[in-house]
């Protein structure tokens, strides 16, 4: 809707030439995919490898897509916050707002054949992989139409057809799984890579180093991404890690430190990492990012950090604001257009929530489905050689 209006309006303008510097002011067509080059705000820091260039090739279409996707993710997380407080979402709910740039930047650099596996803070990664809002909300509310049919919950979103392997509750356990995915990709000669995401808290797990050793030994195309939001639940990194340089912890494995609030920097780093991993084996990316919410909905998030710190980051480093500024300064869209876009996204999210609220809960018989897979002509019987059926009072 907004997009078509924009494109019809901009047809009257001249098509711009390729520009190198952000300072030139020309009207770009918002659906234009001709390349723009933008410098990242913060340089990359590298360990045992070359830093990628700070100049990122992008296009107005892409930046607009970043804005839209991040706004959608942000809205989804805020909606999840209200749903949790309304007791429609129960248990644990770990929100990703503030870290959206990571999800969208990564998606921009890879294909659906590349695998992503992450921890419990997986809502936005799921959406980034192509998951639908209504599937996410249904799963959060424990409905049958959820992406895991209501059996997984917030921490167990998966999307097999998009190579999204979840969604794991135990801190750090997804890292060996991620290396297994990379192993399978090497085994099948897929020419694809695996991004195994974990946090600064999980960076202290032994299995990370075990998996790193194996990946480096066998040259697996595994990219380990440390989402360093500076707090492992309530413990700041300076209190939990002797060495806060998570990208250097690989020792013999190269690493790159990236500004995780800059979607373009994330995209550049992931592109670089993918090329590296396919040729040389594992690489660690440390994404310097921040979460506005607490660790989960049961954590106010202000007992171990000041509200000033949170609002400071929101003012200076917010990923959506950064992209908004880019869009405005490059004249890709006007303020009003962006606001309209956000309104639309809000409506989209509200509709998804409403639809999810209407969805049915799983039947009682679903309790026993997907425990085992029947195969080999061999079946699992109960005491009477009949299939185990559920009868609940």
């Amino acid at each position, binding site marked *: 809707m907004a997009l078509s209006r924009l494109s019809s309006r901009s047809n009257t303008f001249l098509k711009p030439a390729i520009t190198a510097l952000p300072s030139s002011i020309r009207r770009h067509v918002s659906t234009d995919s001709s390349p723009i080059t933008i410098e990242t705000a913060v340089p990359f820091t590298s360990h045992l490898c070359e830093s990628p260039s700070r100049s990122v090739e992008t296009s107005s279409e892409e930046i607009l897509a970043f804005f839209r996707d991040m706004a959608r993710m942000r809205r989804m997380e805020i909606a999840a916050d209200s749903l949790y407080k309304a007791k429609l979402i129960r248990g644990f709910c770990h929100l990703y707002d503030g870290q959206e740039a990571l999800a969208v930047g990564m998606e921009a650099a890879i294909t659906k054949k590349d695998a992503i596996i992450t921890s419990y803070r997986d809502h936005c990664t799921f959406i980034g992989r192509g998951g639908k809002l209504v599937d996410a909300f249904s799963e959060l509310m424990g409905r049958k139409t959820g992406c895991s*049919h209501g059996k997984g919950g917030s921490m*167990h979103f998966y*999307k097999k057809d998009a190579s999204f392997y979840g969604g794991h509750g135990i801190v750090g356990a997804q890292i060996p*799984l991620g290396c297994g995915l990379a192993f399978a990709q*090497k085994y099948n000669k897929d020419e694809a890579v695996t991004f195994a995401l974990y946090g600064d808290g999980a960076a202290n797990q032994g299995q990370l180093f*075990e998996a790193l050793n*194996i990946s480096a030994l066998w040259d697996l195309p595994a990219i380990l991404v440390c989402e360093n939001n500076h707090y492992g639940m309530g413990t700041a990194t300076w209190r939990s890690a002797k060495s806060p340089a998570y990208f250097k912890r690989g020792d013999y494995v190269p690493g790159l430190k990236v500004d995780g609030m800059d979607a373009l920097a994330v995209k550049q780093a992931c592109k670089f990492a993918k090329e590296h991993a396919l040729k040389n084996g594992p690489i660690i990316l440390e994404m310097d990012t921040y979460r506005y919410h607490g660790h989960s909905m049961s954590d106010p998030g202000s007992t171990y950090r000041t509200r000033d710190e949170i609002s400071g980051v929101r003012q200076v480093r917010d990923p959506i604001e950064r992209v908004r500024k880019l869009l405005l300064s490059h004249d890709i869209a006007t303020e009003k257009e962006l606001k309209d876009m956000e309104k639309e996204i809000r409506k989209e999210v509200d509709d998804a929530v409403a639809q999810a609220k209407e969805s049915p809960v799983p039947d009682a018989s679903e309790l026993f489905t*997907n425990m085992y897979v029947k195969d080999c002509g061999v*079946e699992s*019987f109960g005491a009477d050689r009949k299939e185990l059926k559920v009868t609940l009072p």
Partner: protein
Amino acid sequence: MSAILLQGAGAATSLSPFNSIDSSKLVAPSRSSLSVRSKRYIVAGSDGTNKSFGASSLVARRSEPLIPNAVATKADTAASSTSSKPGHELLLFEALQEGLEEEMDRDPHVCVMGEDVGHYGGSYKVTKGLADKFGDLRVLDTPICENAFTGMGIGAAMTGLRPVIEGMNMGFLLLAFNQISNNCGMLHYTSGGQFTIPVVIRGPGGVGRQLGAEHSQRLESYFQSIPGIQMVACSTPYNAKGLMKAAIRSENPVILFEHVLLYNLKETIPDEEYICNLEEAEMVRPGEHITILTYSRMRYHVMQAAKTLVNKGYDPEVIDIRSLKPFDLYTIGNSVKKTHRVLIVEECMRTGGIGASLTAAINENFHDYLDAPVMCLSSQDVPTPYAGTLEEWTVVQPAQIVTAVEQLCQ
């Protein structure tokens, strides 16, 4: 079919010292009182004399080997088995290797990972020669990191590979418990059926020959509550190969429990391809008086005791339950309905063991058919000691089985 082959294996052991035991002198095993069980001791006299000994004097009396080998010896088995059908003779570890090799030939997605499985050939030679044949990527030597390589196997399985993960000793897999429990067992469920985890986790466990406490662990009791996995225990070359093949072909995660002392069992197995049903128990010896349920190495202790019992006029029905999760309640139930008495003989610990679960399952389902309470003989709840005599007393011995049967059949 399997019963015929296996009777040969079980009957081949020769156990003269035990045949002469007067079992009435033995302290009767009691299900209820742990303290009584701990005082149980074995009296063996090869000269036919039977005396009651206190624990201290038994220690002093070391001239006779107390417990004979409960493992089939080579010559006898060969003679009795070859008569039944043509096939080829091999040892249990070779049967496992054959099964593994056939499955790897059949499906390129099957790979093996574990410590020293490749170039070294496997610490128990189960994967010998496979690395040369299939290459390093399919037979992976991992560094010593059970947590990571089990996780890797599970991650690879999520994409469709079929790894066979070997724990060099089952006890080491405790380090991978998180991966086995949370990822292996649960991913099929929590993803709403999107991912299947067709891994096989296998390795030798059980009490060996003075291997020490940490290398004599029986993990079946720890893993049995994990939802979403299947557990099987092999006990003969025939079912080892069959279960290995079935486990690899299964879409569910299967834990295959082998036993350190059974790797050198010899048997003749069919030349043609076969697999064993993962959920089925094996009838070792049909009988009328009492059902003895057992698995893995204890099967041989039971068969040994069965010889004694037969001489005394009892007719025990021996079932190797094979499937530890889920239990084959059908076969077990039919047997209970016939004999009305159950004795469970297992090697895992008393507390929270397979026998405990099985007792509960039998009591719940077949209570009306029981004439006597279900009796369960398990290993003592102690870390396995190093000293040979102490180690022998940790596990259930044939004499105790005989006594238990006599007590139940009164």
